[in-house]
């Protein structure tokens, strides 16, 4: 069952829609700068399959990129980011409205192979944290090694930031991070980030 996001856009609420102004107002510029915003309604598909099986190749074809097999890595195409979540698990992230198409393609790729494709677009929302201070903000609540020698664009991790489990996806070297957080925890995470950026 899928939803065409655009037709119903006026009915949608993202978990942090009401915070947009506060997130924007928290922006700091300059060398210690940091920006925070929600990117709502991204398409997210949880994909489970055997990376060595025939479905993996079909999925790669459908996505236009091989499934990342290196732990904690991301493969990005023009319109998708495929995040490694586990040895047989990925999160395919696409643009708002793309979920039905991606889901369909992945289901076809999976075929009769054991595995699963689950639309989890509304399960998590995405917070983007960027700017020269973004890393030090995250380091206030995340025990991962985020130094460029250890983490960088193309890397993702499921980890904990300030008591909240999330998927961390670094998208560029500025650095910018996406924090994919479950809807029910989004408010807490946003509050925490606002507090940490204000430090």
């Amino acid at each position: 069952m899928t939803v065409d996001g655009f037709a119903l856009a006026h009915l949608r609420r993202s978990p942090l829609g009401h915070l947009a102004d506060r997130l924007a107002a928290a922006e700091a510029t300059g060398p210690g700068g940091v920006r925070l915003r929600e990117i709502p309604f991204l398409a997210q598909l949880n994909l489970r399959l055997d990376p060595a099986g025939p479905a993996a190749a079909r999925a790669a074809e459908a996505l236009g990129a091989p499934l990342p097999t290196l732990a904690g890595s991301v493969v990005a195409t023009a319109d998708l980011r495929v995040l490694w979540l586990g040895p047989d698990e990925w999160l395919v992230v696409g643009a708002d409205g793309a979920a039905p198409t991606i889901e369909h393609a992945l289901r076809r790729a999976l075929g009769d192979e054991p595995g699963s494709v689950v639309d989890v677009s509304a399960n998590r929302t995405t917070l983007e944290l960027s700017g020269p201070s973004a890393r030090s903000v995250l380091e206030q609540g995340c025990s991962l090694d985020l130094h460029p020698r250890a983490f960088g664009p193309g890397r993702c991790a499921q980890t904990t930031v300030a008591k909240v489990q999330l998927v961390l996806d670094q998208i560029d070297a500025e650095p910018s991070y996406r924090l994919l957080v479950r809807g029910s925890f989004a408010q807490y995470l946003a509050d925490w980030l606002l507090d940490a950026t204000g430090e």
Partner: protein
Amino acid sequence: MLLIACPWCGERDETEYHYGGQAHVAHPADPHALSDAEWGAYLFVRDNPKGEFAERWMHAAGCRRWFNVVRHTVTHDISAVYPAGQPRPVPPSDEHSEVTA
């Protein structure tokens, strides 16, 4: 705060994991064939060594995979990490770990 290397995700803080107790305790093939005492032992009795212990951990905040760790219960030194379902690696015979407390 132990540092445990998930076989997939690499080193993460202990707080990302769930502890699962002793490794290699299989659910009995036919529980109903067991006496109450044997079943009770399966339910409740686990090794509790002072020394190296093969135990289970699950990367709860990460890839959510269960795996096994050989950890020294005094020093917390970890001598092996291996996926669930694999046998406990045999330690190189010339090595012995030190007990300090």
